[in-house]
């Protein structure tokens, strides 16, 4: 599959995920947390298609969220760009073939995104409760995102067939 087709598919997938997140999922509050479909989708795309797709997809998906929410433009983009890049690098180097990779990535990136957003909100002078973000909402947030991971990652795998190692021209770690 060409990179152009992959780019188009990931753009559509992330746009749909961002709209669903803003329009539906952000209204759902379970144990103080909200399931983050967009983040889980970004993890799926980044793991399967690498850091370039992850960073670019994260940036534009963040822009969609900030625009629809009338939030500070660029804030979600910054966090998702870094998250997408980091997960993409993990996929490119060690994580792509491992069964636990999507779950591990989602858990870790949920923590990092929460921390990143907390720091950024503090820096721009917003009053954010660190207790709410890190103690009350973080654990249920990880759990909800992990529950979303199997169906979302399954869909991503259907859309983005994992490339053969020979196609990538990368060195594969054995053992």
């Amino acid at each position, binding site marked *: 599959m060409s990179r152009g087709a992959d780019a188009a598919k990931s753009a559509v997938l992330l746009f749909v995920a961002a709209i669903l997140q803003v329009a539906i999922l952000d209204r759902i509050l379970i144990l103080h947390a909200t399931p983050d479909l967009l983040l889980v989708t970004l993890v799926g795309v980044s793991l399967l298609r690498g850091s370039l797709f992850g960073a670019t997809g994260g940036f534009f998906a963040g822009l969609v969220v900030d625009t*629809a929410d*009338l*939030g*500070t433009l*660029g804030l979600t983009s910054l966090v998702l*760009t870094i998250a997408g890049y980091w997960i993409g690098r993990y996929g490119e180097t060690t994580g792509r073939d491992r069964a636990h990779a999507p779950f591990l990535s989602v858990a870790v990136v949920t923590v990092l995104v*929460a921390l990143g957003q907390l720091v950024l*909100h503090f820096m721009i002078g917003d009053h954010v409760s660190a207790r709410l973000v890190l103690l009350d909402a973080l654990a249920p947030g990880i759990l909800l995102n992990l529950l979303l991971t199997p169906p979302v990652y399954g869909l991503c795998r259907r859309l983005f067939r994992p490339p053969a190692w020979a196609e990538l021209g990368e060195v594969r770690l054995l053992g």
Partner: protein
Amino acid sequence: MGVLVLLSLALITIYFRESPGGFLHRTQSGGATILRPFEVGANRVARPFEDVYGYFHGLAVARSENARLRVELERYRQLYGASASAIQQNVDLQKELHYYETAKYPEGYRPVFASVAGRPLSQFDQSIVVEAGKHQGVRLHDPVVASGSLVGEVTKVTSTMARVTLLTDAEIAVAAKDLTGAAGLIRHGQGSGDSLILDHVSKDQVVHKGDMVVTSGILAGRLRSLYPKNIPIGVVTSVGRSEIELYMSIQVSPFVDFSTLDSVAILVSRKPAPQLP
């Protein structure tokens, strides 16, 4: 990736520093209008599922809610009897004294009804996006109510949409009073959930569990807007006095369930906003 990070930082910086009428704000406003049909479409798809969930959830809590409402009804029936004569007396006295007031709630306000279009991530933003803006007469800092109770205030407004910061946001504080007269500030309580606290109420005041808390209509200190008097906010759920605290510790349960807001009314004053001397 570096380019995208720099671009994001540039966007944050410019957006943060420019005026609400600046280029990025206008672009965002236009973008939000373009994205709106997609959000509406997603909402329509999700609506039947939400309705089914709401139906079963309603059935599950109906019995306990019924008991609570019966107790409340009895209490408010008694309060109504006591306050009806006081209201008439108040009207008569105001007429005799030629008492002047700014716009009164609800007569002095025109409600602009709007549905809730979106709800940003709750841990960071206690706000909602509603489908009414400047075209409908909405202005910055207009108070917002739902089912007659205070919800928050308009903190960002575009031509067709507005962002409403909820009472549960740490940046909002509303001058409020207990109906028995104790005045203070309503703000979000520590920790999670929708609970509010009535702060800055001195210990010599008398506040009881079950008292209703309403807006006092007084502009004080750092408050950004003048809410009209007597908009219901919530009911006192606990009153605590500590030796080491300057003020009483009063927990207030809001009348509005902020997590299930579907539509709100933005109160647009029929009179010009009063200016401080």
